[in-house]
Every structure is written in C-alpha cells, then in structure tokens.
C-alpha cells in the first residue's frame, strides 16, 4: 500500500451503481475469495479449524473410549504414557490420566465440549447483542440510553469476572451439585451475558446510519413494520462485522470456558472439558506424566490460535480501510 495522496492507480470515477449487487457478486467483488486463496495462513487456519471441528463432531465415533462414562474407565489403565514411550499401550495412543481415562478420547470429547460451549455462548451473546442493538438503534430515546448505559457498566467487568459471578450466584441459589446439562447451560449463559456488548454497539451504530436512509423511509411509507425493515434491510448490512466479532468471540468464549473450568468452577473432573483436563494435568507436571496436561493444552492452544487467525484475516479482508 502506498500513501493515500500519491494518486497512483486511482480508479477513474465510476458511475454510481444503480442497483445493489447480489450477495454472490458482493462476495466476488470484495475479493474475499481471492484474498483468502492468497493467504497461506488463512488457508492453514481454516484447515486446522475444520479439522478440529471435524474431530470434535466425530468424537463419539472415533474415540477409543467414552471418557464421560465412568463404567468405561478402569484404574488398571491409569497413568499410561503415550504409545511411543516404553510403557505405552494400545489403544491409549496419547496415554491415560490417573483415572485410566484415555487422554486422546478426553481431548476429543473436550474439544467437542469446548466448541459446543463456545458456539452456544457466541450464539447466545450474538442473539442478545443483535436484538438489543437493533432495539436500541431503532427505538432511540430512553430505551437506547438504558441499553447503552447497561452496556457501559457491563464493559466495566471482564468476561471472566462476570462468568464467575453468574456461576457463584447460581451455585448459591441452587445449592449443591448441578447436573452437567444445567452446568453447561449456566456456563453458556455466563458467556452470553459477558460478550453481548460488542454486537449491540456495532448493530446499533449501523442501525443509526441505515435508519436515516431513503430506502428505510420508503419502506416505512409502503407500510412495512419496523421489525421487517430491521431484519430485511439493516441486518444484512451488519453481517460482515457481526461475523468478525463472532469469530473472535468464539475464541474468547472457548478460553473463558477453559478458564472457568481451570479455576474449578466450570465442568467437573468426571466430565472434563479441555480446561478441566489442564487443571487436573497440572498436578502431574512434576511427576513426569506430562501427557495429561500437554495434549489438552496443545489442543486448546491450537484451536484458539486457528480461530483467531481466521478472525484476524476476516477482519482485515472485510475492512475496506486496509485494502
């Protein structure tokens, strides 16, 4: 890129486009695909993400063991090293933990849990944020002020703190042990409540811009109701930014879940997520049973790095300023 006032290659004035191009055309015009194919990192990141998502989805089919089923764990197989070490045993290719849990299976199931929690959390925060953003932007006035003030307050607290508080309050309110289902729900809600602000702000500002445009006024004149206008005309304009936020938030959500589990307030040891596995494995850092912490750690790091790379690339590709 050259300085902007060196007017090299300035395109000749293009006549104003009359009709907005179709989505496909927009995709092509934005050079998204070209930029994608041109970026080796983006390709590698996508490949890694797809691979890991695939492994996660297929976990029940390909795992040698169901690590969540206590009946399948046998203490006899505990603390086995990976297969390439002297005491390694098939089918425990990456070794086992202190309960005889197959590390490979646990990592696969853990990836699955991490992704489930992450995706659900992102969807929750996205739906919440987009809805509130639409409402705030369209309604304006007191409602807008209220929502955006709440967003400000919310921004005061990092996600992990909010998630911990939600978790703690829920524990205080329900008492005792939560089943895994509700527990996952709780974590998803914690994450949802932590990450909605960015969506809301983006959507709101976009609505503010679109609201004043002629076509929205026209749509209103022909009798379309606000929800229809919002959904049909405003939403498509924010898909790009929202998608970028969602990608980056997915990585954050996965980290948040892992952190909660690491702090001991997330998923229990009997149903370990990657974070729980790392917490347990951490105990064996000195005793030479490195595989219990290393593989979950690698899987988590790999997943998050891949998603972040994708997110970075998407942001750059969709940001006209940087093109």
């Amino acid at each position, binding site marked *: 890129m050259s300085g902007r006032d060196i007017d090299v290659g300035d395109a000749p004035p293009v006549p104003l486009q009359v009709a907005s191009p179709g989505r496909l055309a927009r995709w092509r015009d934005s050079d998204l695909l070209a930029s994608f194919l041109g970026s080796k990192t983006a390709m590698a990141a996508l490949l890694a993400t797809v691979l890991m998502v695939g492994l996660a989805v297929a976990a029940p089919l390909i795992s040698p063991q169901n690590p969540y089923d206590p009946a399948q764990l046998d203490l006899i197989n505990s603390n086995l090293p990976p297969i390439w070490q002297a005491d390694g045993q098939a089918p425990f290719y990456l070794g086992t933990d202190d309960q*005889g849990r197959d590390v490979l299976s646990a990592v696969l199931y853990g990836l699955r849990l991490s992704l489930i929690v992450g995706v659900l959390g992102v969807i929750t925060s996205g739906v919440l944020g987009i809805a509130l953003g639409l409402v705030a932007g369209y309604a304006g006035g007191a409602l807008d002020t209220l929502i955006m003030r709440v967003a400000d307050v919310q921004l005061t607290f990092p996600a992990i703190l909010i998630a911990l508080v939600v978790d703690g309050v829920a524990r205080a309110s329900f008492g*005792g042990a939560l089943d895994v289902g509700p527990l996952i729900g709780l974590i998803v809600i914690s994450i949802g409540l932590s990450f909605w602000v960015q969506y809301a702000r983006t959507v709101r500002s976009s609505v503010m811009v679109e609201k004043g445009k002629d076509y929205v006024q026209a749509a209103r004149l022909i009798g379309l109701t606000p929800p229809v206008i919002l959904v049909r005309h405003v939403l498509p304009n924010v898909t790009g930014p929202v998608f970028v936020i969602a990608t980056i938030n997915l990585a954050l959500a996965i980290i948040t879940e892992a952190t909660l589990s690491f702090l001991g307030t997330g998923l229990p040891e009997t149903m370990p997520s990657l974070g729980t596995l790392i917490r347990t494995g951490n105990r064996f850092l000195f005793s030479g049973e490195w595989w219990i912490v290393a593989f979950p750690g690698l899987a988590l790091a790999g997943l998050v790095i891949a998603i972040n790379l994708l997110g970075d690339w998407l942001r750059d590709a969709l940001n006209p300023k940087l093109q």
Partner: protein
Amino acid sequence: MSRSTLKILARGVAAGAVATFALAALPAQAANVFRFAFQGDLKSLDPYSLKESFTEGMQQAAYESLVTLDKNLKFAPGLAESWETPEPTRWRFHLRKNVKFHDGTPFTADDVLFSAQRVRASGSNFTTNVPSDAEFVKVDDYTVDMVLKKPNPIALAQFPTWLIMSKAWSEKNGAAQPTPANATSPSYATLHENGTGPFVIAEHQPGVKTVFKKFDGYWGKAESNLDEAVLTTIANPATRVAALLSGEVDWIDPVPLQDQQRVNASGTAIVMAGPELRTIFLGMDQDRDELKDSSVKGKNPFKDIKVREAFYLAIDEETIAKRVMRGQAVPSALMIAPALYDRASEIKRPATDLKKAKELMAQAGYPDGFTLTMDCPNDRYVNDEAICQAVVSMLARINVKVNLNAQPKAKYFAKVLAPNYDTSFYLLGWTPSSLDSHNILFEIVGCRKPGDKSGRGSWNLAGYCDPKIDEIADKVEGETDKTKRDALIKEGFETLNADWGYIPLHQQALAWGVSKKVHLTQRADNLLLLYWVSKDPQ
C-alpha cells in the same frame, strides 16, 4: 527485546525500592526462620473451633494442654506437672507454677476450670475431649481435681488436644464462648491467640500466612532452635512441590503421591512418610427414609443391607490403593488403623466380588441400579477427589450412577456435618483423637440422637445406628482390663462389619516433604509440632 525491557523495568523498580529503603526501616531479619507450606489453612486460632489435625498441631505450638504426648505418643506432663488418682473417680492435677500466658498473666487453676467449661460449651468442636460427666474442682491455685461419676480408664485419652485458654483474656475480649461453627460475627479468639506455648502467633492472615515467633517467656526449654516459623497456604500441589524443591519452603504437606520420587531424587529434600493413623472410609446415609438426590423415591436403598454389601463388594480397594494411591495406602478392614488396635490383623477385608455385588443388587430390587449423589472433599485428604472418582466408576459397574459433588473442604464440611447431615453417600477420613477404638465406636458408629449432648454419634454422618454397638462402646469405656477390652472392641467392629455399616477403604500414607536442612520428629499422629522442629542455621 523483552529481556532488555525487563532489565529496565527491574532497574526502575530497584531504584524505587532503594529510595523507599531510606524511608522505611527494614525489620530486623530473624536469624532462623522455618518456612512451611500446607495445602490448607490454619482455619481458626480458637483451640475449640475445629477438630482438624493440621489446625490442632499448629494450635499446639501456641497453646498447651495439661497432659501432653511425647514423641512415642505416650502421656507426658504438660501444664500439669503430675497427676494422680486418689480415688477411681477423682483425678488430681498438680499444675506447673511460673507458667505465663503470652500476654504476661500467670496461669492458674481458674484457667483450667474455665477451659473445662468452655471446651464443653455449645459451639465447641471438642466437647468429647473432656468427659461430659466430669466436674472440675479447684483445690488451690495450682491444684485441680476432676471428679467423675464413674470410673473411666481412658478419661485422659483426649486431654492432649484439650488446650488451656486464659480465663481473664477470654472474658476481657468477649470470647468466653467458643466460636460456633456457623457464626457470622468474628470472634476475637478466632483471630488472636493467647496461650502458654513456646511460640506466639505474631501474625495471622487467614488463607495467606501465619507467623509464629519464639515466646521468650516460655516456662520450659524448647527443643526447637527456631526464632520464627512462617506458614503459607499453597493449595496447588504442583506449586507446593516446586516451592520445596526450589528451597522457598522447608516443609510441605502433603507431597502428592506422584511427586514423591522426584522429591527424594532432588538431593535437597526428602519425603517423610509416617505411619498414617487416619482411616479413609465411605459412609452411606441410613437415617433418612428417602435418600436425598436419588432416583429412588419413597425409600432409602441403604436401609437394605444387601445394597450396602453390594457397594462394599463392588469397590475395588486393592486397585485404589495400588493405582490412585500409588501403593502408598494400606487397605483396611477396620475403621481404625492397625497401629491403634492390637487385634486388627484378625479381621480381614472381604475381597471385591463384582458378580456377587450384582446379584445382591438384583435381589434388593435394583438390577438396573439407581442414581445418587456422592459428597467428596477435594482438598482434604490425599487424592480425595481421585478416590471418589474411582469409586464412581467402580459403582458404575453395578449400574449405580453416582453424581459426584466434589467441593473444597469448607463447603463440604458445612454440607455434610451436623446439624445438616446433608449427604447420602460421602467420603471421610478419621483419626481418633484419643488414639483409641472407643472414639470410633462412640463418635463415628454410635447412634446419633437429637439433643444428645454427650457427643455420641457426633461424627456419624451416615446416621448408622445399632444399639448393640452403643452398649459395647459403653462397656469398652469402663473396662480397664486390656484383654477383655480388646475382645469387646473386636465384637463391636465385627458387628459393624457384619452389618456393612461403613465401607472402610484404607489408611492413607501422608507424606511430608522436608528440606534436608530441617530436623524434626514425625510422630505417628502426623501432627507438625513446631517445638520439635530445628533448622540448620544459615
């Protein structure tokens, strides 16, 4: 780049530090400081608030008892120079003169009378340490009589953990009553200490650190050469081991089983695995008519002896000892350690029998098992949560689905202990403070009755009850002939075992990690007693 930045950073900070040095006079560095780390915390400084070995051991550095235990667990004079039994129901204690509390006031008979009353008051966790029928009489300032209703050969058994507090100090600071377990207002005695022991607690930050300083006005001659001892809490096992290996601390407890080899190989520290007296066992709620948090409604499966037996037989303790405990545990047939009961070897632990367990479940009407919740501490005993997890997967083989609720010990105890007894199935560890079987038969196995102030069944969270065992326990308490007594105890334990009342698992090996610079005595009850700790001067 980051290294050079760090250097700059460090330089800046150092410059700041130097500047501040000029302003703040550094406290004189104590000559010989023993630093030690425990996985948990010293929960309370009030010597009657929590019966927990580590807390008790720490309190014994600052507080003293009338009768104490020597390195071989034999009675030795403490604040009482000597004692005698002029008649079978009267015990006379001759108190040590010239003993001073840390606040400088002298120790007298009034303090003993006060402590005897306070330790048995409501809210005390040590009510059973002093016989409930004992009456204390002041003969003179340095002589106290304990008058019992009936003869009791083991009346002094728990005296070593009954620590004497100052009457004047307690009353002055509004701490005349022990802190109740669920108090919401802080008690002075919880955070402050005033004992007669060789160490003063100079600083106590709950959950962070506690500083012990040598008490210069101590009446005796301490074996320890320490000037100061600093206790820190390091909950994370790996961090704790790292701290020992790097020399940041001189003593840690416990050394995780998996790290013992590494500690021994380090050359700077060793593992001291003592004969562990604590028995880890599982309790099954046999009190409620409907089990809490279970799929079984309207009845309590644990009331069926077949279910209890099935549980017992399904749990493969041998494998737990070998794998989870890495061979550092001894499977136990009894609720007491063999070291504490001479005829222990006569009772054998039934072997694991999965087939029979399944049959029993079918006979009891649960061929497809049932669901229940298990309570488990995750920071109290060696590999506690791992043991529970292993139990969960073993019970899965007889189709019992166990939801494991593993929690930090504070939460765990608040849930399962009196008065809530809120548990269906739990793991607990127990060392009889009297080092005697009676304590087990009385506190763990004895029937618990609402309003019973004697302390019987006070730790019987399972609500197990067999009046026959209560009778035996009472006989044991009064029996002075060892042979007869041991026979009675055997009968008691066999009755319990025949009823599958509890599932004893093992005696855990509790290992300390000790720097080679430190010399100390590890007594069989595993208390860390600072007055026996010495450290090579730097």
